[in-house]
């Protein structure tokens, strides 16, 4: 996300606060794809759209309390992470088995669907077990498709530090997969 986009986001937020509800639609369109991809990476396909919409409804509701201390995109990522955590908390409370609907697995045509389903569950479980910092760098690179230099810019770290963090994150993920 560039500084220019951040400035435009701020402008849209101000317009929304001034009563222009179309400004939020613009924010929605601008950030929908990245929120959707982030959610889809960690949540079963059947619930992706619901959770994505919940993120934006929560954003709409609490945009008044957004102080602009971080970029809007960063704030939205935090909100998305909270909604994902809430989703899994609710599932655990209901005692639902960590199932992935069959069509979710079949969507990927290669290989054995049930094997892919198992793999998907295992990877998501491992992702949920690594530290927030590790999970975040994996999500930024894989789910949101940011390049390493973009991640460095976003997080205020240098490129080497981001690559090192990424390698350690993958290593931690692998350790959890092996358990």
């Amino acid at each position: 996300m560039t500084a220019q986009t951040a400035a435009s986001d701020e402008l849209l937020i101000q317009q929304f606060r001034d009563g222009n509800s179309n400004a939020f639609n613009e924010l929605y369109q601008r950030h929908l794809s990245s929120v959707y991809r982030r959610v889809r990476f960690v949540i079963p396909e059947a619930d992706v759209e619901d959770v994505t919409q919940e993120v934006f409804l929560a954003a709409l509701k609490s945009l008044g309390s957004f102080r602009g201390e971080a970029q809007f995109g960063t704030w939205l990522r935090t909100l998305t992470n909270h909604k994902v955590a809430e989703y899994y908390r609710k599932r655990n409370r209901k005692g639902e088995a960590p199932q992935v609907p069959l069509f979710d697995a079949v969507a990927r045509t290669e290989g054995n669907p049930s094997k892919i389903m198992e793999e998907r569950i295992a990877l998501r479980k491992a992702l949920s077990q690594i530290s927030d910092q590790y999970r975040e760098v994996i999500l930024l690179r894989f789910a949101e498709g940011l390049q390493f230099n973009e991640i460095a810019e976003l997080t205020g770290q240098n490129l080497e530090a981001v690559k090192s963090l990424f390698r350690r994150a993958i290593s931690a993920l692998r350790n959890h997969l092996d358990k």
Partner: protein
Amino acid sequence: MKMTEPKQPTKNPDDLLADFTDRVLDGKTAVLASSADDELRGLEETIMRLNQVLPHKAPDEATLKRLQADFTSRARSAGRSSRPVWQSRQSRQRLILAFTAIVILVAIFIGIPFLLSGSGNIQATAGLQPQSILALVAIGGTVVLLIWLGHRK
């Protein structure tokens, strides 16, 4: 900046894994890099698994449009699209502020004649009387107070 194949091979495992990830995500490779380092090969395997198993492609146009329409309807039914909660709270605060200002001003204007008439009979001929000054100070103070309240978040 797109990560491309380095001209000279790098020794740093961080760079090697990052380059491998870039190639995998760009669809330029579907096989493990021929690394002699077992640990690095293991990490590359994990990268391949992440790429193959978890969905990470951008949604298509039709999905985006459907989501947009659905969101508009959800926001409307939640009664938030036209007037968010924080906005109505702000409107209420403004109303209370305006009402307070009116009450104070009315009280001051009603009070001025009483203050002036009660001031006695023989007063100085030039300048403002003390009561008038008091009233002006009260008005000024009220205005300053209201401005301050209005700017408070």
